[in-house]
């Protein structure tokens, strides 16, 4: 047995005489004439007139009688109605299959959703409706939906102006609509179709996402893309960790030497070496004065290649100040500066250190007077493989830019979706 729509019965409109087709004979109660818009009673073989058309007929975007497959089941569009609530409006196509009954193809002007009337009511607790183990959150408040236009055949008495009170509950991608009148209530579950699915199935022009407010139950694609890109980023960050363990220099000390320093403001030079670099690498030069009280030491380093005499120059300052002012005690300065030189080619080097010690006398300040520091020593330690945590953090930052952008777009999307619900 194939899942195809049922056979068609030919009739004539009792108002205008136009030819009609009854697609779901035995199920249909109302038949709205395609030619004059009059509503006929399809339960009576004589098709008595229920209501004459109040306005000119419009052609639905999907022609009635067209068939399309969703999830492997063929459906035929038999009825079409338009509903409004306040300033917003939407269309509903009634789809029919003799073996599977009815479905609604809901067109909110942006996306299509496929809905079915439930044969059971969800459990509503506060602002949440629970159905099949899933929780749907109430979206917007209760509102009235009125039929503005109708054509085709329906399994219930439908008329222009018919109004139902509606509450919506949303789980991104799906919406539960609770429709109530004085005499009955129904629950409908509608699943949003992917972009272009309904258009392709019925052969109509495809919609484009654009910047229109999202539908109430439209799932944010940005959210899905965010998680995907975050997984990629996390894998890449783990790869960074592996790369840092595998490739970074382990920090071998090449040379440690104590250099005398005199705190008289005069520069003196010392040559340290040789430093042998077996391969291109970075080095860190750390200066540790034995004592440094309210004084500073200027350090100029020249890393000189013994073969080419090419020199890599860099400077540092070791400083340590402290005192007391109206706000209390204070301290500043880095007494043990570490200087990092990157990408030094393999070779044999000398480190020429020009060193000058200075004392701070504190003239014209709240600086506490200290005796001039005595001359002393500075320990210079040269290590192969400087630490560059900035490389690591910059790499991570670059990897997180795209997920960050997607997260921002996701929140913007959700904000617009919620605002659209509040406006309704």
């Amino acid at each position, binding site marked *: 047995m194939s899942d195809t729509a049922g056979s068609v019965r030919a009739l004539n409109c009792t108002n205008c005489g136009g030819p009609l087709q009854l697609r779901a004979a035995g199920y249909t109660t109302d038949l709205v004439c395609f030619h004059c818009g009059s509503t006929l009673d399809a339960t009576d073989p004589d098709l008595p007139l229920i209501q004459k058309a109040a306005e000119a007929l419009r052609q639905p975007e999907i022609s009635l009688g067209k068939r399309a497959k969703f999830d492997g089941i063929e459906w035929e569009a038999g009825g079409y109605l338009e509903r409004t609530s306040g300033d917003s409006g939407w269309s509903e196509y009634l789809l029919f299959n003799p073996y599977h009954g009815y479905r609604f193809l809901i067109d909110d002007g942006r996306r299509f959703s496929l809905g079915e009337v439930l044969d059971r009511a969800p459990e509503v607790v506060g602002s949440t409706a629970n159905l099949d183990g899933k929780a749907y959150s109430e979206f917007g408040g209760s509102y009235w939906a009125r039929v503005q236009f109708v054509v085709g055949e329906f399994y219930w008495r439908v008329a222009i102006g018919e109004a139902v009170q509606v509450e919506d509950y949303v789980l991104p991608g799906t919406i539960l609509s609770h429709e109530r009148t004085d005499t009955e209530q129904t629950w409908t579950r509608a699943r949003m179709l992917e972009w272009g699915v309904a258009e392709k199935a019925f052969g109509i022009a495809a919609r484009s996402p654009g910047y229109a407010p999202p539908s109430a139950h439209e799932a944010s*694609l940005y959210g899905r*893309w965010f998680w*995907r*890109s975050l997984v*990629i*980023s996390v*894998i*890449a960050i783990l*790869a*960074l960790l592996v*790369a*840092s363990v*595998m*490739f*970074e*220099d382990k920090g071998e000390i090449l040379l440690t030497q104590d250099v005398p320093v005199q705190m008289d403001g005069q520069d003196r030079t010392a040559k340290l070496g040789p430093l042998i670099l077996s391969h*291109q*690498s*970075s080095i860190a030069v750390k200066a540790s004065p034995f004592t440094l009280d309210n004084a*500073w030491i*200027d350090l*100029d380093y020249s*890393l000189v290649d013994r073969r080419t005499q*090419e*020199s*890599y*120059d*860099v*400077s*540092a*300052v070791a*400083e340590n*100040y402290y005192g007391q*002012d109206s706000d209390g005690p204070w301290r*500043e*300065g880095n007494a043990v500066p570490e*200087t*990092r*030189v*990157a*990408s*030094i*080619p393999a070779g044999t080097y000398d480190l020429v250190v020009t060193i*000058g010690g*200075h004392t*701070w006398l*504190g003239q014209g*300040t709240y*600086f506490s007077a200290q005796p001039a520091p005595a001359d002393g020593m500075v320990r210079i330690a040269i290590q192969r*493989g*400087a630490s*560059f945590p*900035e*490389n690591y953090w*910059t*790499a991570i930052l*670059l*990897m997180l830019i*795209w*997920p960050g952008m997607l997260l921002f777009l996701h929140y913007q999307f959700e904000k617009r979706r919620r605002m659209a619900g509040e406006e309704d």
Partner: protein
Amino acid sequence: MRIGTILHALLCLLIVCAYAWAASTGYSPFADASGRNGGGGGGFFFHGSSGPRHK
């Protein structure tokens, strides 16, 4: 947006490779000086101290 995901994955791969290369050659744009640039840096505009900033 699938192209965005592919480009992001390629960018991450490129960054990991660049990081591995930098780690193995001791390269960093954040160094006080760099042999690749022929030296310099680290005090070109500010050299030495003149006492505490706390005055």
